[in-house]
């Protein structure tokens, strides 16, 4: 049964129970005995809860499948100074659709910042950390493991920060010592 069918069933059932709840006592004669309400209320609550739960989860199931990222290596390119991953989307049944989307390679912003650093630090340390992050990210993308992708992204940026802080401190200390030596 589809979502619409379930919704219609829930509406009909709810309407019937509400009618029974409102009209029933009148048909049966006014009664102060509240126990006659118990059965429709319990059934109605149970039906409403199960229907709502089913509706919520059915709706989640019936959502269009999120595109899985596959085959990144076939189309990844470096455009200008930026690495861009062109990722293809897969349908739920595993077929590769013709739809593709662009994704900025991880570390693009960091790469832009790192370019401002001196050549040795930029090329030998920070650039290599970004390259490592991209290599592992592409491996994670190829395996379709989104959790791994996030971990690689976070770990790569953490390594960049952990390498950047001591670098800035060491440069600052060196400059301070140079200035100190110049002072007569």
């Amino acid at each position, binding site marked *: 049964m589809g979502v619409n069918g379930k919704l219609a069933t829930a509406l009909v059932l709810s309407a019937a129970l509400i009618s029974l709840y409102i009209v029933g006592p009148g048909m049966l004669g006014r009664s102060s005995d509240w126990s006659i309400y118990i059965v429709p209320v319990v059934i109605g609550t149970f039906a409403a809860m199960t229907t709502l739960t089913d509706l919520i989860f059915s709706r989640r199931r019936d959502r269009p499948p999120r595109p899985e990222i596959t085959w990144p290596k076939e189309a990844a390119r470096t455009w200008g100074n930026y690495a861009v991953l062109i990722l293809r989307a897969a349908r739920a049944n595993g077929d590769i659709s013709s739809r593709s989307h662009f994704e900025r390679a991880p570390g693009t912003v960091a790469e832009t910042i790192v370019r401002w650093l001196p050549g040795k630090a930029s*090329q030998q340390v920070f650039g290599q950390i970004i390259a490592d992050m*991209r290599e592992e990210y592409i491996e994670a993308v190829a395996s379709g493991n989104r959790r791994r992708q996030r971990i690689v992204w976070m770990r790569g940026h953490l390594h960049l920060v952990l390498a950047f802080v001591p670098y800035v401190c060491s440069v600052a200390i060196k400059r301070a010592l140079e200035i100190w030596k110049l002072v007569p």
Partner: protein
Amino acid sequence: VEPNAPFPSAIEAKILRLLVSKGESYGLALVKASDGALKRGTIYVTLGRMEEKGLVESHQEENTDQYIGIPRRLYKVSALGLRVHDAIIAGNLVLQRGGLAWA
């Protein structure tokens, strides 16, 4: 090995050993080959220090991997590094006879 040859740390000795066994390699490949002994965050700083000591030589790869977009820096053992590595092996052999190990 010359008397004033640089004395490598345990990590540097491990990198030397990996570079001798694997040949020319880059940082991440060394980290993966080390089974957790080397860390991603410190490998390049250590390699830079080893290069300053003259234990390793590096050059930028000619063909950049189009998927990564940043040229890799490849490291290999220098002649001095090879002699230091051999000295470590020889030293370890001597120490092992006494039930000890260096690096």
